[in-house]
């Protein structure tokens, strides 16, 4: 079954990169992109994606706030945070906000596909830089 993905990041070049990384999977479809938290909430409401790939540090509304709101308005959508913050504190905040997965941007090429696969099956996936087995230890 096709996994429908919404990609959210304020930098178009990063969205391009995420599209390239995710686009190689035959059963995944990028349904749309958003450039900030407000746009992400709006598009998640309308499109009801299976997975929202969500940056944290964005203008207008941060990814954490968007994560909380999307979890309330579209509980079926799973959220995978993809961020530059290689921090256990930030990871905990993201999980408390309702994210199912957490990947550090510098490791996106290594972790992104496995993370999307996991969260699309409602399994958690978390990995910090240099600690691929930390906390939830990747795939569970």
């Amino acid at each position, binding site marked *: 079954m096709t996994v429908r993905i919404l990609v959210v990041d304020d*930098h178009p070049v990063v969205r391009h990169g995420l599209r390239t990384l995710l686009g190689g999977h035959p059963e995944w479809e990028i349904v749309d992109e958003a450039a900030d938290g407000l746009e992400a909430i709006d598009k998640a409401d309308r499109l009801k994606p299976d997975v929202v790939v969500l940056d944290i540090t964005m203008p*207008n*509304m*941060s990814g*954490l706030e968007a994560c909380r709101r999307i979890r309330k308005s579209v509980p079926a959508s799973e959220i995978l945070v993809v961020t530059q913050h290689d921090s256990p504190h930030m990871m905990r905040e993201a999980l408390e906000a309702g994210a199912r997965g957490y990947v550090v*941007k510098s490791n996106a090429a290594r972790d992104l596909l496995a993370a999307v696969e996991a969260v699309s099956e409602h399994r958690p996936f978390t990995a910090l830089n240099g600690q691929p087995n930390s906390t939830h230890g990747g795939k569970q």
Partner: protein
Amino acid sequence: MKLRILIADDHEVVRRGLCALLQAHEGWEICAEATDGRQAIEMAAQLKPDVIILDVGMPNLNGLAATRQLTQHDPQCKVIVLTITDSDQVIREALDAGARGFVLKSDAARDLVSAVEALQRNRMFFTPRVNDMVLAGFLDKGYNGSGKEPPRLPKLTTREREVIQLLAEGKSSKEVACVLSLSTKTAETHRSNIMRKLGFHSIRDLVVYAVKNNIIQVQVPSHFHDPVEGSVA
């Protein structure tokens, strides 16, 4: 013949995005990808790319220091600096280092192709803010290299700038020596000279200096900001 482009960014997801953006342009090819400034310099020496695109915030050797070394070695070298901020300090450093293009990462999807096209035609490409600064520099003889503005930073050698970044990233003198292929004693001498020139007494002073002068970049967790407003990456 294809235009050969070298890109350097420590984030693979950004490199993927840059590749997708640039390879869509007919007649251009990515000849190599580097993950830090040092690797970019090595690859540039081997491959002689037509255009080099360097992120500013990279580990080991940042994009501005790499630009400086590349243009010192080859003044005709065409470098585009890719940055998350167009602060006066970064603009001044980039121009001083010899960059011919300056593109904000947030605008890369819109501006990067235009920037490469400009350099391909032996022209320069800057954001409107950089153009304003350059123009202001010519009008008031400020930062146009007239030599009348007093230098803001103490005169540091290229090697000392490299050492500052590595020390500020938390490396010991021994590790610095290893990265730069020096003896530990030489690395310690560089460290002493830097501390003396800058009037510093601790590594903490050095780290603050490195952050203030964009030699290293520090992630600011978003919980330091209003959670609704967020901050710019």
